[in-house]
């Protein structure tokens, strides 16, 4: 810091006290010394020399002490020249007439130079202070440090005892930086309620204003009085055309701030506005990046077809972290006017709301509001909420919340609600951010629903086919087969009634009965291919045993504790094994087929493996494709591996959930 800046940094009281005292002393002692020194000197030196020396003194005093000492010295010099350095006090050789012009020139020069130096010093100080703050802005120092530095510089520059900076938050001012002359910067806390008249002026007019210290109220004024501050100058910090906050300087003495004070404070305010804009842009970009990352993580889960529980939990967690709230919950609206919690995440992972909790809608709470409006909503304070679940949440210390609906294919499916432990804690864009998550959830739910509908439709088609076959088999059995049986018995009954002598009749009737029996066998064979009775009557285990028994290739059965299962699963499993055994017998030249079935994890697991020649390709024959369709129609998984020369292996899992 140059000497000029150091000395010129402020108004009245900025210079170090020692320097000020020295300057005043010199203002009096200087001219006196010069006068005394000039007395015995020769006249030739008097006019020019004395005045020149005095001018130098005045300039030095202007730099060191400001206008006061300089002007004092000027006046004293004029008086000394006019009254003391004249006969009869001084020697007769000084009796030349007073050179008025020279004196006048001295006075004018002194005045002009003094004022110029003073102004220059102030300007330099101001520019230096602004430059220091601008450097901090350019280096993007954190906001707290920037505000503290700017507050201090502003306070010093305008010569105040106290400087502070506050930000508007709601109807209060949040103090962000403060500086006291004796103590330096001090840590800030607290909110002020503004001095009504002052702040209203500032907010309305958006311009700086001095304030009277009377009739001031509000905690700002209370703090001010506590510090002994009697007068304050204020400048608004305008960001984007709106009043963001204020910067103020106060004094403990009755001091009318000069007009330039507000202008200087405003200059700082402008710099700070630029910094705030930068900071907010950076923060905005950072928030955006964070939001995009969170959404991308969720979208990846959606694209991978993650299970709903996992997806919903992930959404609640990401939303919580992004919004900076402690708890986020996802609910699903049921058709009976209740809502069920499908996922909930709490900071620290402490469980609080139970998944599956079901409450009726109603009362003043976000679940109900969203259900009624189908739009995002917020509750900024839980003062008058009602409803069993929200009361529990409020009792746990939460005070405000934001929520957005999940609309699946145009219909309300559920909602995501984020709650915070502070009121007014959620920024205005919170609803939009929750909304971006709910859009993803809606996509996932829609996908899942579509998939489920498709699967159900396939399953219905398969089941309809199986039912039709069962019916045909049943009809064959109850109708044609029974009649054939009865006819056979009737023929044998007739045969039994033939007299022993009529062996020809006996033979004829026997032939009829045999013929009928053989037709019955053919029908049975046909029926067996349509639907295996033993599957419906006895279940999968006896049916697989029957398949194994009838198979021309030896079968090793391993049935691990399988009992009766849902019919579609049993049918599918039967046909899978049946088809594989048929293929093994017809194509594979296998010596043995292993068939295994066991239940685990809510699914029936099947394994069929033969040691034949392999080379089975689903693309070549419809049999294996049909198996794939059957299994997948039930939502199961199937895999067939048949490298040529290495046998054929099939693994399938059929879900047992209803």
């Amino acid at each position, binding site marked *: 810091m140059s000497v000029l800046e150091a000395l010129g940094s402020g108004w009245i009281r900025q210079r170090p006290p020692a320097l000020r005292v020295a300057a005043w002393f010199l203002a009096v002692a200087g001219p006196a010394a010069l006068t005394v020194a000039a007395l015995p000197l020769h006249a030739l030196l008097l006019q020019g020399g004395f005045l020149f020396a005095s001018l130098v003194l005045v300039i030095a005093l202007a730099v060191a002490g400001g206008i006061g000492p300089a002007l004092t010295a000027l006046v004293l010099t004029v008086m000394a020249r006019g009254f003391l350095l004249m006969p009869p006090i001084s020697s007769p050789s000084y009796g030349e007439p007073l050179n008025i012009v020279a004196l006048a020139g001295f006075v004018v020069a002194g005045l002009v130079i003094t004022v110029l130096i003073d102004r220059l010093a102030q300007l330099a100080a101001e520019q230096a202070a602004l430059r220091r703050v601008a450097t901090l802005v350019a280096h993007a120092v954190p906001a707290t440090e920037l505000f503290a530095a700017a507050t201090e510089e502003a306070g010093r520059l305008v010569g105040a005892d106290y400087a502070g900076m506050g930000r508007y938050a709601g109807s209060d001012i949040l103090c962000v930086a403060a500086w006291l002359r004796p103590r330096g910067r001090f840590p800030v806390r607290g909110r002020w309620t503004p001095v009504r008249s002052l702040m209203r002026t500032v907010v309305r007019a958006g311009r700086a204003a001095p304030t009277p210290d009377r009739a001031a109220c509000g905690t700002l004024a209370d703090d001010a009085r506590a510090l002994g501050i009697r007068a304050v100058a204020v400048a608004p910090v305008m960001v984007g055309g709106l009043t963001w906050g204020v910067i103020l300087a106060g004094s403990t003495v009755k001091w009318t701030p000069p007009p330039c004070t507000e202008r200087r404070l405003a200059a700082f305010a402008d710099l700070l506005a630029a910094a705030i804009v930068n900071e907010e842009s950076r923060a905005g970009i950072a928030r955006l990046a964070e939001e995009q990352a969170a959404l991308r993580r969720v979208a990846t889960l959606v694209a991978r077809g993650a299970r709903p529980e996992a997806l919903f939990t992930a959404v609640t967690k990401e939303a919580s972290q992004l919004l900076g709230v402690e708890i986020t919950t996802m609910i699903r609206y049921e058709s009976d006017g209740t809502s069920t919690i499908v996922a909930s995440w709490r900071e620290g992972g402490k469980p609080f709301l139970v998944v599956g909790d079901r409450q009726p809608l109603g009362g003043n709470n976000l679940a109900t509001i969203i259900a009624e409006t189908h739009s995002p909503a917020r509750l900024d304070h839980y003062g008058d909420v009602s409803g069993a679940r929200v009361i529990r949440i409020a009792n746990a210390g939460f005070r405000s919340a934001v929520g957005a609906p999940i609309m699946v294919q145009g219909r309300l499916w559920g909602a995501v609600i984020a709650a915070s432990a502070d009121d007014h804690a959620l920024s205005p864009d919170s609803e939009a951010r929750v909304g971006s998550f709910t859009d993803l959830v809606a996509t996932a739910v829609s996908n899942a629903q579509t998939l489920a509908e498709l699967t159900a439709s396939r399953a219905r088609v398969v089941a309809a086919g199986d039912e039709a076959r069962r019916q045909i088999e049943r009809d064959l059995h109850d109708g044609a087969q029974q009649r054939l*049986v009865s006819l056979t*018995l009737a023929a044998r009954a007739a045969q039994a009634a033939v007299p022993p002598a009529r062996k020809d009749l006996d033979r004829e009737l026997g032939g009829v009965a045999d013929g009928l029996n053989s037709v019955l066998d053919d029908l049975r064979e046909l029926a067996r291919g349509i639907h*295996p009775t*033993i599957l419906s*009557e006895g279940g999968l285990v006896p049916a697989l045993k*029957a398949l194994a028994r009838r198979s021309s290739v030896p079968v090793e059965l391993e049935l691990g504790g399988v009992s009766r299962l849902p019919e579609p699963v049993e049918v599918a499993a039967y046909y899978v094994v049946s088809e594989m055994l048929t293929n093994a017998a017809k194509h594979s030249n296998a010596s043995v087929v292993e068939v295994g079935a066991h239940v685990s994890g809510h699914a029936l697991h099947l394994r069929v493996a033969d040691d034949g020649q392999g080379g089975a390709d689903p693309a070549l024959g419809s049999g294996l494709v049909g198996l794939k369709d059957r299994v997948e129609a039930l939502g199961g998984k199937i895999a067939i591996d048949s490298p040529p020369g290495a046998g054929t292996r099939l693994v399938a899992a059929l879900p047992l959930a209803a």
Partner: protein
Amino acid sequence: MAFGVLVVDDNQSFSNAARLLLERQGACVVGVACTSAEAVRRVTELRPDVVLVDLALGDECGLDLARLIAGKGCGAPAVVLISAYSPADVEELLAGNPAVGFVPKSELSADAIRRAVRRSGRATDADALSAKGH
């Protein structure tokens, strides 16, 4: 002692044909029943030696009726299961059932019944049957 047979089947025409055949072959059909409840009553009333039970009794299960009848302790008649299905189709269902044997309906005859009972080792019934049989 009559070789008494009770036929339990929900198909009337079969029951009639069976009765005609068995009587011509020397067995005595003491009665016919269409449902489980009716069958249990008839067993108590008529005390047959053998009960022929169709596997598929309408909506009911012949296997269950067989267990019910056989569970009546000693003196209970022998139960032979019959069906329009061939043995190969239903073999696994018969495992563990107290019925003494299975005869496909198309091969029904008094001899077949006798053989089934004899194979099961219920000697007194077999003697009774052979005493009366051809």
